[in-house]
């Protein structure tokens, strides 16, 4: 039975690794989604400095962790997030409420989508 334990062990390690990675991505996306939500609320209240600070924080956090998550998520998904983030940042700097709301909402949706990419669900499985 000993030789069979090795592939079983490897499978368990793989499973653990994928679960940890999923949890990490979910946490990151959750964190960024929260910041995005807060920036949308602040923009609605006209608190543009807070908006710019939040967007800066989102950008910084994502950039710091980008290299790691790029190993597990399709690069096109990451590119889309970066693009939407830069558009939201530009809208925040010009204090354009309608444009910022649109881009920030799109960013929120992208982050939510990214967090469910590898989630164990019937939709993902089939």
């Amino acid at each position: 039975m000993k030789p069979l334990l090795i592939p079983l062990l490897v499978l368990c390690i793989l499973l653990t690794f994928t679960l940890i990675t999923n949890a990490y991505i979910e946490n990151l996306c959750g964190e960024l989604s929260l910041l995005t939500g807060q920036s949308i609320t602040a923009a609605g209240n006209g608190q543009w400095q807070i908006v710019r600070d939040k967007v800066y924080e989102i950008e910084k956090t994502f950039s710091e962790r980008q290299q790691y998550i790029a190993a597990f998520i399709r690069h096109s998904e990451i590119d889309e997030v970066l693009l939407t983030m830069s558009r939201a940042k530009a809208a925040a700097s010009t204090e354009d409420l309608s444009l910022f709301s649109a881009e920030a909402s799109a960013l929120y949706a992208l982050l939510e989508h990214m967090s469910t990419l590898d989630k164990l669900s019937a939709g993902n499985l089939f």
Partner: protein
Amino acid sequence: MLISLLRTVILYFAVIVSMRLMGKRQIGELEPSELVVAILISELAAVPMQDLGIPLVNGLVPIITLVCLEVLLSGLILKNNLFRKLLCGTPSLLIRNNTVDQYELKKLRLNMDELMEELRLAGFHDINDVKHVILETNGRISIIAKTGITSGSNATGMCTALVSGGKPVKENLTRMGLTIPALHTLIALQGYNDISDILYMFIDENGNTTVIPVDQANGKGAKK
């Protein structure tokens, strides 16, 4: 391009190591699942090799998973006969004691032409020279010849099929210079009234005919 190059190198070694870990039976494709796994691994390695937008892990994780599953399954097959039967099936006796098992042929969706082709490829041109023919679980055919006969030692030369699956083989009849009425006469001489009663009939270069009738009861044929 550098990324493409490095990915190719990584995936190449991943595939080599995978095949090495799975062992000689994988390379030999002893069972159907091994053929499937070999094809899957090559496809999985090709995807991140071509598309740089796909993470390398998306190719490596499935490859490692397949290797582990393959090693596990082959270990279980070794330890458990029931599992082996379930996963690999059992060898099928197509010809048993010089008798064609027509039920088995039907079950395997094999026709006589295919069986004769395999015999010829193995160097047996006359079905009368073989005692047992086994279709192994890996899809290969094993032939046990009658005592004193080896492959390629057939003295009767090439055998030509005249009837296959109850129907005349018109091209061969034309080549042999036989007409349908002449075929009917030959069949009548063998003691059969209808071509549809004959599963397979062939003639050798000496003019000797061999008939394998259709077994109406349970598909088990009787040799002449």
